[in-house]
C-alpha cells in the first residue's frame, strides 16, 4: 500500500512545480505600439461564445522583451522584407488577362479591414473562404495566372501585405448566419483530442496557456498576428502551416493546408480572438 502514496506525493510536487512556472510565464504587462503610431490591443475581454476564458491575449504578450521590440518598428521587423516583396508582386502583371492585383484593387491600402474579417462566408462560392483562397481565386479567375502554393512564400508574403494595412483594427469574423455550421465544425476540431499524445488544441492553448511547453511560453494560440515571422525558421509562417505543425506535434496525421477542416478551424480560432487587433505580420520565436 505504500507505493500509491509515494506516487501521489510525486504528483503533488509536479503540480507545485508547474504552478511555480506559470507565475513567471503568464502574459506580461507590456503594451504594443507599432512605429509609434499604430496602437495594438493585445488584451481584450473574451468574446461571448468563449465559456472557459475571461481575457484573451495576443501571443506578443508571452514573448521576451527582445522579440517584442522587433515588432514595434517596421524597420526592425524582418517580416517587412517579405511584405515589401509582396508590394512589388501586387503591381506585377501576371497571367493571360494582363492584370495585376493593383489593376482591380488599385492601392493596397484599399484592402484595409479585409484581414480582420477573414475567414468569411463567400456568397458566390457558397462556402467559407480564407484570404489565401481569395488570393488564389483572383489569380486563377481574374488574372489567368497560376495559383500559389497555399503555405508557400509568395502566398504568405501577400497575406502579410494585406494584413499589414489592417493592423490596429479589431479582429471581427462573423460566426453566425451561413458561416455557423463551419464555425461549429471548427469548434468540434478544437476540442477533439488527436494523435498518440491525445491532445486537443484546448489542452494547451485554453487549459495551459501561461505555462511552459518545454523551453517556450505557451500562448493562447491566437492567430491575430499571422502571418508570423518566426526567428526559428526566418520566414513568414501561415496559419495553416502552424496548424499542421501543432497537429503533427500531437503525433497525428495532419489535415492538409487549405482543407475544409483547417478552414473551419481557422474560422473558429479567429473567432476566439475577436476583439484583439490585427497584428500580422508579427514576430515570434
Amino acid at each position, binding site marked *: 500500500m505504500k507505493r500509491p502514496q509515494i506516487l501521489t506525493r510525486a504528483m503533488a510536487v509536479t503540480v507545485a512545480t508547474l504552478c511555480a512556472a506559470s507565475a513567471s510565464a503568464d502574459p506580461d504587462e507590456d503594451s504594443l505600439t507599432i512605429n509609434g503610431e499604430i496602437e495594438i490591443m493585445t488584451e481584450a475581454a473574451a468574446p461571448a461564445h468563449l465559456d472557459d476564458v475571461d481575457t484573451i491575449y495576443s501571443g506578443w504578450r508571452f514573448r521576451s522583451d527582445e522579440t517584442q521590440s522587433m515588432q514595434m518598428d517596421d524597420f526592425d521587423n524582418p517580416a517587412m522584407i517579405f511584405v*515589401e*516583396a509582396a508590394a512589388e508582386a501586387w503591381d506585377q502583371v501576371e497571367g493571360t488577362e494582363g492584370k495585376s492585383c493593383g489593376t482591380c484593387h488599385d492601392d493596397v491600402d484599399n484592402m484595409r479591414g479585409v484581414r480582420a474579417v477573414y475567414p468569411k462566408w463567400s456568397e458566390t462560392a457558397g462556402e467559407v473562404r480564407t484570404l489565401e483562397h481569395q488570393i488564389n481565386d483572383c489569380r486563377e479567375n481574374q488574372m489567368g495566372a497560376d495559383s500559389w502554393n497555399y503555405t508557400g512564400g509568395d502566398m504568405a508574403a501577400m497575406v502579410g501585405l494585406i494584413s499589414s494595412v489592417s493592423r490596429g483594427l479589431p479582429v471581427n469574423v462573423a460566426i453566425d448566419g451561413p458561416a455557423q455550421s463551419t464555425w461549429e465544425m471548427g469548434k468540434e476540431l478544437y476540442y477533439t483530442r488527436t494523435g498518440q499524445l491525445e491532445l486537443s488544441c484546448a489542452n494547451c492553448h485554453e487549459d495551459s496557456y501561461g505555462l511552459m511547453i518545454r523551453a517556450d511560453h505557451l500562448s493562447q494560440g491566437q492567430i491575430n498576428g499571422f502571418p508570423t515571422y518566426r526567428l526559428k525558421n*526566418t520566414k513568414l509562417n501561415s496559419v495553416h502551416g502552424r496548424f499542421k505543425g501543432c497537429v503533427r506535434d500531437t503525433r497525428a496525421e495532419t489535415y492538409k493546408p487549405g482543407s475544409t477542416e483547417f478552414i473551419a478551424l481557422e474560422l473558429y480560432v479567429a473567432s476566439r480572438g475577436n476583439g484583439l487587433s490585427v497584428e500580422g505580420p508579427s514576430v515570434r520565436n
Partner: protein
Amino acid sequence: MASGVKPRVKVPKTAAAGEAITIKTLISHKMESGQRKGDDGNIIPRSIINRFVAEFNGQNIIDVTLEPAISTNPYFQFEALVPEAGEFHFIWYDDDGSVYETKKSINIA
C-alpha cells in the same frame, strides 16, 4: 549574381548639432557562405556582401568587413555624431562587384 538586393536605411530627418543619432541599416541579401552544397552535391559558390561603409559629408564614420558566417539580410545599427547639416552616404560592396548605395540627408533642428 545575387538577386533581390535592396538597401534600406533609417536616419532621423533632423538632429541637434553635436547630437548622437541612431542609424539603422539593412540590406536584403542571401549571403551565401560558400560552405554549403546544392542538390547536385556541388558547392554553391560564395556570394556575400563583403564590405559596408558609411560616410557623412565625405568623412568616413564606419567601415565594416563582413565574413561568410554573417546571416541573410545583414542589419547594422550604430550611432553617429552630427556636427552639421549634411548627407549620409551608405555603400555596400557585393562579391560579384556590384555596389549598392543609398543617401540620406539630415537637417539641424
